[in-house]
């Protein structure tokens, strides 16, 4: 299909492009930015005056729940939700049933994602078999099946020596390892950030050191093994500082943060609303501010949804008996625009943290607008607003932002030149 997008403010953070221009698309690729090639007659034209055209967003963690947890979500439903949030490429974590530790599971996910066609999907493979942290998964088979990186989620390795070997093995083949650094023992049985709020509510705490102790250890192991490492889902200001220090001494590590960690704090737990039950937990205002500063400075180069859809029953219990996680990928752009509205980031920087930032961290072929490149893009109205939840596409409505009026509205999402979302 041929398509022209006319009059949009085209922003490509990776090249510094920011100008009102036209985009021309043919056979899934951008064939021109600016004047149309001679003789180009598009089948469809989008008048995009007042809209921003940016690279489609890249989300490093969207739980698709398939295979194994179809009551929570499906590849079709969650990639559709992602398209509504402006996402054109996403990584799905290995916590499926069966675990994404064999290539058949990766193939199944990729097949179904292609069939659905709402978003490009890049699976993250399990670093250890069954995520048990004892035996390595077949990383090369998984890589060849399409896994772009490997992680063990919040599940720790049985011991540090096994972890160290896993990192050495991954380093041998230049594979990227994703860390969700949290010390199992310090976090044990915890439900909320160990601080005044958890004490007040009588919820067992997860201290900041659960993150920083594990992070410090993991950074040293990365340094020793030379493995490519990405640190995911940081929650604390001191954690971000540790990443900053490691980067400053030349360690090429990257990091992401869950978008909700940049908006919420543990104060939200008052009244025990299970919608705010997340792991790792929401922390303090000072942590939120520290994370925001790290996003601003680029120490944290990626903002991701860490989308975790759930069925109703998973949240319908006393706080401690509920399953953790927030469903929010379909609000990714409007929620993130809060950071622009708050004056933390300019628009181009925000878009960088949502597109080329995450794409570069995991070496994904995504996150840029360039002639000859895939026509993966989002068109949004920065002056409009989105009432969260007016329409809802994810199977999980476990989202504390439903009902809130958020800045900006996604109008079109395009994947390989075809419209995957239109509002």
């Amino acid at each position: 299909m041929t398509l022209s997008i006319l009059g949009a403010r085209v922003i490509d953070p990776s090249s510094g492009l920011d100008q009102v221009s036209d985009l021309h698309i043919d056979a899934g690729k951008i064939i021109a930015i600016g004047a149309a090639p001679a003789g180009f007659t598009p089948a469809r034209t989008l008048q995009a005056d007042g809209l921003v055209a940016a690279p489609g967003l890249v989300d490093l963690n969207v739980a698709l729940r398939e295979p194994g947890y179809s009551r929570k979500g499906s590849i079709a439903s969650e990639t559709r939700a992602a398209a509504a949030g402006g996402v054109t490429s996403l990584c799905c974590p290995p916590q499926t049933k069966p675990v994404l530790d064999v290539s058949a599971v990766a193939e199944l996910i990729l097949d179904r994602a292609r069939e659905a066609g709402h978003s490009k999907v890049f699976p993250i493979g399990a670093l250890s078999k069954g995520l048990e942290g004892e035996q390595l998964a077949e990383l090369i088979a998984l890589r060849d099946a399409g896994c772009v990186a490997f992680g063990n989620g919040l599940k720790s390795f049985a011991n540090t020596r096994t972890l160290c070997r896993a990192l050495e093995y991954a380093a041998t083949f230049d594979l990227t390892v994703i860390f969700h650094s949290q010390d199992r023992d310090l976090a044990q049985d915890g439900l909320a950030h160990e601080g005044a709020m958890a004490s007040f509510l009588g919820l067992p705490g997860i201290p900041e050191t659960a993150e920083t102790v594990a992070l410090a250890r993991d950074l040293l192991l990365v340094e020793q093994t030379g493995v490519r490492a990405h640190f995911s889902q940081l929650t604390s200001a001191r954690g971000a500082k540790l990443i900053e220090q490691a980067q400053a001494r030349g360690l090429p590590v990257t990091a992401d943060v869950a978008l909700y960690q940049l908006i919420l704090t543990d104060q939200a737990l008052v009244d025990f609303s299970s919608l705010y039950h997340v792991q790792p937990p929401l922390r303090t205002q000072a942590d939120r501010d520290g994370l925001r500063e790290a996003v601003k400075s680029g120490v944290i180069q990626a903002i991701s949804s860490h989308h975790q859809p759930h069925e109703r029953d998973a949240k319908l219990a006393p706080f401690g008996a509920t399953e953790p996680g927030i469903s929010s990928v379909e609000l990714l752009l409007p929620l993130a625009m809060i950071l622009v509205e708050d004056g933390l980031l300019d628009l181009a920087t925000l878009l960088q943290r949502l597109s080329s930032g995450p794409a570069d961290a995991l070496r994904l072929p995504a996150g840029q607008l360039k002639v000859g490149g895939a026509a993966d893009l989002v068109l949004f109205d920065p002056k409009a607003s989105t009432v969260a939840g007016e329409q809802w596409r994810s199977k999980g409505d476990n989202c504390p932002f439903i009902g809130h009026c958020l800045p900006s509205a996604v109008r079109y999402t395009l994947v390989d030149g075809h419209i995957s979302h239109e509002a």
Partner: protein
Amino acid sequence: MTPIDAKRPLQLNDQGQLRHFLSLDGLPRELLTEILDTADSFLEVGARAVKKVPLLRGKTVCNVFFENSTRTRTTFELAAQRLSADVITLNVSTSSTSKGETLFDTLRNLEAMAADMFVVRHGDSGAAHFIAEHVCPEVAIINGGDGRHAHPTQGMLDMLTIRRHKGGFENLSVAIVGDILHSRVARSNMLALKTLGCPDIRVIGPKTLLPIGIEQYGVKVYTDLEQGLKDVDVVIMLRLQRERMAGGLLPSEGEFYRLFGLTTARLAGAKPDAIVMHPGPINRGVEIESAVADGPHSVILNQVTYGIAVRMAVLSMAMSGQNAQRQFEQENAQ
């Protein structure tokens, strides 16, 4: 955007009366005083030959206990019976996997049997809030203890005990001793004492048993029992659960008793007319010496008696607040 919901007074009706009793957080001083005054008047009922008043006649009160209890359960039963309610008590065993389901379904079933009030004890902090908000908002929910979070009727019976023995709260020094971290009683007591105007609230224990950020309750923290007890009017001892020795919170019961056990000698540092309280069941020789538990300063058994009166007060007030709300909503609907 303000992503954090404004805290709404879940347990009050539109007129500011009690309709659930979940926590002492956010309840005004006047309301706590009203509970104490009402309980005072019910104490007299307990002293009569016929110990019944008809305030809850025709109402059904269900005690639903997901955690074991003897004292709390029986005093709630007696309180409901003395108010002429029909009372049933369920001890629901919980398996960790189906906790939420059991709670939700059990209460929905009881609601379908036209229960008017649930007294709930549950091991998860926030369980009572969850039930009042998501399970049965039309039924008055009384928190009989939820996890480490709150035990508001215990808090109020402790306040009644203090007021009856000390006359008020304005000039008192009160010390709470022991395992504050795991104690819902301590949390409820700290909130109640602060609301009622107690100027000197002390907590005493080792750091492993003190929650982070405890200063938010407006208390002074002591890690030395003798310093903490100096010239106090009231000593509230907390039960030390045996399982605290696991996981490195304490080396042994013996060492805890050596440092934080209340003995006659240590109590001598308090005011001469100090009272000693304990929510029970007591561990003699672990947190308290028998000579103190049974001695002249001890008001531990009075607490049990007052507990019935306080629970009568709370049950009757919450039922009347819930009824008023229903009436109000019906009138508004018309």
